[in-house]
C-alpha cells in the first residue's frame, strides 16, 4: 500500500451554517487553485448526470463559497449525496499525483464528503435520503448490539482458533451475506497449509461511514483493533476491500494509532502462495473472463495486480483484461458504503452506473466478470437480474477453488 495518503485531522472542529474552519477553506482553495477539473471527467456520477456540481472540484468550491460568505451549508441541498466515495477524483487530482509524496498533501475528497454529510445532518439540514442512509446504519448497529448477527456461524465447522500469527478478518457483511465466498477463501488458505485464526465477534467497520455514528463508531473501531491485538496477529488477511480501507486508513486516522500488525489484502497473500508453489491451480476452467477492479482496492489502496495474477495462473481461462487505470472511470454503482448508502440516495443512478460497467465488460465479448469484492458482487448480481444481461458474475476465489479442485 502507498504511504502517500496521509489523512488530515479536520474532523475535530464542528462547522456552522455560515462557517467552515480555515483549514478546510484552504484545502478547498487548493482544488479551486488547480481549476483543471480532471476529477470531473473521471467521476462515474458526473459521467451519468453531466452536472458539473457533482464533481470533486465543485464540492470543494461550494464549501469555499460558504467560507467566503456567498453561500450557506443549508443551501447545499442534496449536492453532497452525488458521490460514491469511489476515490477516482482524489487519485486523479494533480495535487495527489504530483505533490502527494513530496509535501504529504493529497486531495482527501472522501473524507471531506463524509465530514460534510455529517455536519449537515448534525446541524439539522437533512438532505434527501439522509434518514434512509442513517436507518441502514442504525439497523446494523442495533442488530450487532443485540447479538442478532451470526458473525461467527460461517466458520463453526472449520475449527479455526482465535489466536495466531495470521488472522483472517471480516466484519458482519461478508460473514453473514457472502458466506460461500468467505468459506472458499478459508478452504484455499487451508489447502496451502496456512495456519490462521479468526475473530469471532467483529464489529461492523462501515468504512467512511463510521463517523456518522460518533462515539459508537470509535468504540467499534477500538473493539476491532484491540481484539486483533489480542490475537497476537502479525499479519491480518482481509478479503473485503471495504474492511481493508478501514484497517489501513480509517482506523489510524480515527484512533490516531497505527496497528501493530501488517494488513494484507487476501489476493496479495494468495498470489504470493501461488508464486511460492504452495497452491497449484491445475484444473482447467474454460471461461472467457474480464476483471472488475474494486474501487476500494484499485483507486483507494493501489491494489490491482494480484487479482489479475491469480486469474492468469488458472489454466483454461481466456483472460481479456481492461487495465486498472481505464477502470478509474468505473464503479459498480455501490460506492464505498457497506450499507448501500448510494443506492439508498440514488437508486436509479446507482443502477445506471452498474449497468454501464456490465455493458463495458460485454463489449469485450466475455462470458464472465470476475471480481474480488463482496459489495461489487452484491451490486452486480442485482444489476444483472434487473437488466437481464447475459453475463456471469463470479468471485476470483470461486474460479481459483474450481481450478484447485476444491468445490
Amino acid at each position, binding site marked *: 500500500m502507498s504511504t502517500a495518503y496521509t489523512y488530515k485531522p479536520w474532523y475535530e472542529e464542528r462547522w456552522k451554517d455560515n462557517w467552515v474552519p480555515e483549514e478546510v477553506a484552504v484545502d478547498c482553495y487548493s482544488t479551486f*487553485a488547480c481549476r483543471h*477539473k480532471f476529477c*470531473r*471527467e473521471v467521476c462515474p456520477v458526473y459521467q451519468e448526470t453531466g452536472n*458539473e456540481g457533482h464533481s470533486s472540484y465543485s464540492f470543494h468550491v461550494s464549501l469555499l*463559497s460558504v467560507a467566503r460568505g*456567498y453561500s450557506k451549508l443549508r443551501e447545499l441541498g442534496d449536492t453532497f449525496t452525488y458521490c460514491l466515495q469511489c476515490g477516482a477524483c482524489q487519485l486523479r487530482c*494533480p495535487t495527489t499525483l504530483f505533490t502527494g509524496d513530496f509535501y504529504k498533501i493529497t486531495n482527501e475528497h472522501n473524507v471531506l464528503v463524509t465530514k460534510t454529510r455529517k455536519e449537515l445532518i448534525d446541524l439539522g439540514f437533512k438532505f434527501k435520503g439522509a434518514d434512509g442512509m442513517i436507518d441502514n446504519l442504525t439497523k446494523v448497529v442495533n442488530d450487532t448490539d443485540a447479538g442478532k448477527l451470526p458473525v461467527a456461524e460461517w466458520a463453526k465447522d472449520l475449527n479455526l482458533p482465535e489466536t495466531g500469527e495470521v488472522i483472517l478478518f471480516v466484519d458482519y457483511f461478508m460473514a453473514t451475506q457472502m458466506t460461500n465466498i468467505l468459506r472458499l477463501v478459508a478452504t484455499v488458505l487451508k489447502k496451502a497449509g496456512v495456519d490462521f485464526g479468526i475473530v469471532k465477534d467483529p464489529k461492523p467497520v462501515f468504512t467512511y461511514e463510521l463517523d456518522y455514528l460518533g462515539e459508537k463508531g470509535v468504540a467499534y473501531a477500538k473493539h476491532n483493533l484491540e481484539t486483533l491485538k489480542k490475537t497476537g496477529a502479525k499479519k491480518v488477511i482481509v478479503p473485503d476491500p471495504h474492511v481493508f480501507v478501514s484497517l489501513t486508513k480509517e482506523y489510524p486516522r480515527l484512533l490516531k494509532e497505527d496497528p501493530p500488525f501488517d494488513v494484507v489484502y487476501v489476493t496479495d497473500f494468495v498470489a504470493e502462495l501461488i508464486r511460492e508453489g504452495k497452491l497449484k491451480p491445475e484444473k482447467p476452467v474454460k471461461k472467457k473472463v474480464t476483471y472488475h477492479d474494486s474501487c476500494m482496492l484499485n483507486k483507494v489502496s493501489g491494489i490491482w495486480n494480484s487479482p489479475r495474477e491469480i486469474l492468469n495462473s488458472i489454466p483454461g481461462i481466456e483472460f481479456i483484461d481492461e487495465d486498472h487505470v481505464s477502470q478509474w472511470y468505473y464503479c459498480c454503482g455501490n460506492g464505498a458504503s457497506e450499507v448501500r448508502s448510494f443506492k439508498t440516495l440514488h437508486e436509479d443512478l446507482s443502477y445506471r452506473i452498474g449497468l454501464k460497467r456490465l455493458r463495458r465488460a460485454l463489449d469485450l465479448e466475455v462470458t464472465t466478470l470476475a471480481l474480488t469484492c463482496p459489495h461489487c458482487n452484491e451490486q452486480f448480481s442485482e444489476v444483472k437480474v434487473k437488466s437481464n444481461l447475459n453475463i456471469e458474475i463470479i468471485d476470483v476465489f470461486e474460479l481459483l477453488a474450481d481450478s484447485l479442485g476444491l468445490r
Partner: protein
Amino acid sequence: MTYVMSYRKVDGYVIERLAKIVGDANVLTLPHERFIRAASAAPFPLHRWDDHAPDVVVLPGSTEEVAEVLKLANELRIPVVPRAAGTGLADGAVPLKKGIVVDIKRMKNILEIDEENMCVTVQTGICNNTLNLELNKRGYWWPFDPASYPCSIIGGNMGTSAWSLIGGVSGHIRDLVRSFVHVLPTGKVITVGEGGGRKISKSSTGYTLKHLFFGHQGTLGITTEATLEMFPKPEVEFPAFFGYRSFMDAWKNALKMAKSGLRTMATHIMFDEWKVEALRRDDEAYIPLPEHIKAVIATCFYGTEAEVKGASERIFEIAAKDGGIYLGEELSEGDWASRHDRYHIAYHGRHTDGQVGTYSWHCEDAAVNYSAIPYVREKWHALVAEYKQKYDVFDDMGGFYYNNNPFKQWGDYLTEIDVFIDEYHLTEELWQKWVELKRKIAEVVLEVGGSISACHGGTRPGDVELVVGKELDPGVYEVMKMIKRNLDPNNIMNPGKYLLDSAYEG
C-alpha cells in the same frame, strides 16, 4: 452618445420559462451552483466572486433546447454566457454581467462514427479524452491535445480557438472541424462548414465563415454539434527529451529541428532556465536533471514504425549539433505521459522567503516569432521578478516555447510564462497589480510584432484593451463590431467580452 445597456433581471417568471424549456431539474438557482460556475481557469478575483456569479444556470440537452433558451433571452434581453469545461484561460466563460449560464455538459453524445469518410459527429459537450476512449477501441484517434486534454470540451475548444500540443502533425481545433451546428444569438440554428456538405474538408463555394465561429469567446452564439476529423491511430508515439548547457544553445538547436523536414514530428518545445530551475524545486515531483542542464527541448513523434524510426535517428543527430544530450527513456516518456497534469498544481509557488504559499498556477501565452524569443524571454522574467520582489504574491514558474504551427515546425512559437499567484490572499489593490503586470507582459509581445495570445484568447483585463486598441488593425475591429451587432442585435451573448458593447454605441 453612449448606448446604455439595460438587461432584464432574472426573476421567477424567467426561471419558470427556462424550466419549461429544459425541465425543472436542469435549472439551477442555488448559490453554490452559481458560484462554482463563476470562474474559468485564469486568475480569478476571489475577493469579488459575487461580480461574476450568474443569476441562474441551465443544463440543456439538445440543440433545440439551446435555441429556445437563446430565443427567450433575446426576447427578454438577458445576458447569456456559454460554459463548457470552464478550463479556458481567457475568461470566456466568466460572466461579466450575470444573467444565464448555459452549461453544455449534458450534451455529450457521440452521434456518428463514419469509418469510410473518417469523421466523427458529436454533441459539443463531449470531453476530448472521452471521445478518444471510444475511438481508440476502434483503432481511431482524435488528434487534438490541448493542455486541458483530460477534461476540456469540444464546444469550449471551438469557442476559444484552442491550440493543440501536437498541432505539428494534426493541426489545431480550427483545422480539425469539418462542419458544425451553431445557434445564433437570436436562436436561429445554422449549419456551418466548407460549402454545404457536413463532411466536406475543403470547398470553394460561398464565403468561408467557418473560422468566424472559432475564438469568438461565446459572443456569437453556442455551437451544439460538430463533425470532426478522425485519424487512424498511429503505430508509434515516440517522445525524446534533450538537455542543453544554456537556453541559447537550445534556441539555436530549435531552428535546426524546425527546418529538419521531419513530418512525423508533432512538436518541439523549449524549457528555459527558469522552468528547469522551478522543476528542480520539487525533486520528487520531477525526475532530477543533472546540474549542468540549464534548458531542455522536448520533441515527440507520431507515425508508422518505419517513419518514426528514421526520424528518431535524425533528431538525435540534430540535437547533438548544439550539445543536446538525450535525457533518457524514463524522463522522456514519463514527462510526456504526464504533460497535461504536471504544471498547474497548488503548493509549488514560493514566497520570497522560500516558503510554500497558497498559489494558483497560471500561464500567460503569446504567439512570438522565432527570432524574437530571446528578447521576450528576458523581458518577461525581469517583469515577474520585479513584481514578485515588490508584492510577494507572484512567483515565476519559468517559460515554455512550443512550436505554434499547424502541420509544420517553423515560424512562430507559443511563448508562455507560468506565473503563480496567491489568489487566496488577493486584495483589490494586489489584483490591480496583477492586471498591470499582465498588461506589461502583453506589451512586450506587441513590441516585437507578435500576438497577445496563441491559444487562450485576448478577453481578460490587461489583455483586452491592448488587443482591441493596439494589436488588431482598427478596420478589423470595426468589422468585428459590425458582425457582432448584426448577429446579436440585443447584445445578449456574453456581453462585455472584447469590449464589444462599443458596437452598440451611437
